[in-house]
């Protein structure tokens, strides 16, 4: 008890505390999985696979974290990702240039971000409605482009897709004695670069700090001389841009475009931001927490696959239950902190 009190007395901000909880729970969960389920969890490749599969989700969640710290919401990210994948696949299949395809991905993301930002911050329309319309538009446009799944047939792209970073010392020996090195896709590197950039932006740069100020209390941010409208505009533009990058990474991972690509990604991204300690009310949050939020979500899925719960409904029921646990935990932790603080003041 005494130890706990000391822990709370430390000048941890809400952001850091929630992030620490998320990281702690991830490690506990993963260690438990290693101890009980064994199997794939003992290999480092398991973590690499988790990163490989979720590189685009991590990128999208970073963008969403920025928007959520600023007190907004963007539910169009999954649909924009899907649109980027489909349009880039179609462009590449027509024999397009690889650099132009990258620009195309960034351009689509940026365009959505600009329109959302303008409508939300300068015309003062509710962000939920604007991004909902954006989601409908992107999903509809994807099916207009092509209803059928498309596979990329492009040499240079195949070469780019094939770029894998091999880490021999984290590999393992297969049953026939061959060393299988740990492999990381290029998308993961891009995702980590995005994550670091956003982290630097949010922690040390002025626009990043403005997001926190705006999300924490808009009125005081305005009185501090922050251009609230431009800051909000910027948050949606960054989020749009990251959705574009995420689309390209998604395409590099799957190598094909499908109208149902990234279905439900926006909710996964929101969930990972929340688990990582970002509050939807704004002002609290961190991208490192978001990364661990994504990893926690994936670990839950992996654990369910590895354990005997093979009925199709268990995966989402367990995910929902875990989400419930995290949300309640955060709520209780923040409540306890507020109470302790009030006691201290007395």
């Amino acid at each position, binding site marked *: 008890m005494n130890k706990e009190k000391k822990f709370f007395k430390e000048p941890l901000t809400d952001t850091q505390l929630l992030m620490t909880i998320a990281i702690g729970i991830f490690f506990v969960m993963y260690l438990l999985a290693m101890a009980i389920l064994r199997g794939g969890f003992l290999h480092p490749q398991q973590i690499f696979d988790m990163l490989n599969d979720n590189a685009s989700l991590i990128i999208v969640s970073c963008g969403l974290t920025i928007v959520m710290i600023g007190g907004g919401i963007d539910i169009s990210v999954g649909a924009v990702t899907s649109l980027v994948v489909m349009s880039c696949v179609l462009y590449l299949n027509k024999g397009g240039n690889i650099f132009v395809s990258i620009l195309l991905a960034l351009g689509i993301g940026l365009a959505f971000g600009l329109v959302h930002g303008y409508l939300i911050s300068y015309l003062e329309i509710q962000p*939920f*409605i604007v991004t909902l319309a954006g989601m409908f538009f992107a999903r509809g446009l994807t099916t207009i482009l092509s209803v059928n799944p498309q596979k990329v047939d492009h040499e240079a792209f195949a070469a780019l897709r094939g770029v894998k970073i091999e880490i021999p010392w984290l590999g393992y020996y297969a049953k026939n004695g061959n060393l299988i090195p740990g492999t990381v896709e290029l998308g993961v590197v891009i995702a980590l670069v995005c994550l670091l950039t956003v982290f630097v932006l949010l922690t040390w740069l002025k626009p990043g700090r403005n997001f926190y100020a705006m999300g924490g209390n*808009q009125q005081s941010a305005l009185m501090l001389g922050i251009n609230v409208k431009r800051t909000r505009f910027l948050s949606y533009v960054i989020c749009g841009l990251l959705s574009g990058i995420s689309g390209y990474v998604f395409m590099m991972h799957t190598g094909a475009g499908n109208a149902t690509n990234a279905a439900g990604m926006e909710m996964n991204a929101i969930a990972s931001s929340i688990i990582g300690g970002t509050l*939807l009310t704004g002002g609290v949050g961190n991208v490192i927490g978001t990364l661990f939020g994504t990893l926690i979500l994936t670990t839950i899925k992996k654990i369910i696959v590895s354990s005997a719960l093979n009925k199709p409904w268990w995966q989402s029921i367990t995910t929902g239950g875990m989400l419930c646990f995290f949300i309640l935990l955060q*709520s209780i932790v923040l409540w306890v902190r507020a109470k302790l603080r009030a006691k201290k003041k007395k």
Partner: protein
Amino acid sequence: MKDKFKRIFKGGLGQLTIPIIAIVLLVIFNLIRDPSFFSIGISHNNDGNIVLAGNLISIINGASELAILAMGMTLVTAACGGQDISVGAAAAIAGSAFVKILKASSAITWPTVIAAFLFACVVAMLFGTFNGTLVSVFKIQPMIATLILYTCGRSIAYWINGGATPTVSSPIINALGSFIPGIPVPTPVIIVIVVALVFKLVFQLTSLELFTQSVGINGSAARLNGINSTFIKLLSFIILGVCVAVAGCIGVSRLGLINHETLLLDVEMDAILAVAIGGNNLGGGKFKISGSIIGAYVIQMLTITLYAMKVSSTDVKAYKAIVIIILVVIGSPVIKSKFEKLTRKLRSNKQRVPAKGAE
């Protein structure tokens, strides 16, 4: 004269301006495009009943579930300042519960149907209580609290159904989903009218409307005035639960089967949209149920219009988005000019700083 007109326009329509303009625009557009769009015919259906048919009927009929959900959603939005995104999943659960009881009973008669419906209501109210407790007691934002049920609701429905899509065929279920013999109006439309009347009656007889608005505008101020804001928030979710059960049962009766994946798919987004088009503030506070109902019909009319223009069902979303954006952009300068007037007024007082001035 001009002032008078303005006052009447403002006082009479208020927040209903946008949805009514939208409906009028859609009607004019359809009249220009194809005057026969609104023709209503009388035909005989498969059972030999005399029924009304036509695009207008299919719009009013098709929007039934959406309208019912939008009514409940308005209340939640007003009280909690957030939205319930789990209504589609909860409706799937309620529909599964409905079918489960019907399957368990030996013969489908009116009493069993009513019992099944009541059971579905109880189930949906339980899930509403779950969401409501998270929001009101644990002070979690509604969107996040309902994200839990959104994630796992359809799987719970799947689990209740035992991994299948059970069907129910009975004249009573058929009558609930389409037409009662002898009445040419589709039954879902009658149910919508009944639900709307119940809401009207509740608002007339109780102070629910006033309490909800005061909780939505300022929860702590409402509490200081003796309103139990926790209970009001919980109650709004329970009422939404009943709406969800009604919508789920209509959805099941329409098809005569429960499919946990496709029953009322994406209806949560449409319901929130209906609330927003109805001119209600998604941040809570003042609300008008009538606006949301009109909003639901705007959405359905738009969809049917697009179908009539031979747009394929997967592409409809893109056109819908464009119309939504146009609608909200039309709406926003109005808000802005009102808002500027307000700041000017407050500035001339110079005593108070506008609390929501920066938004």
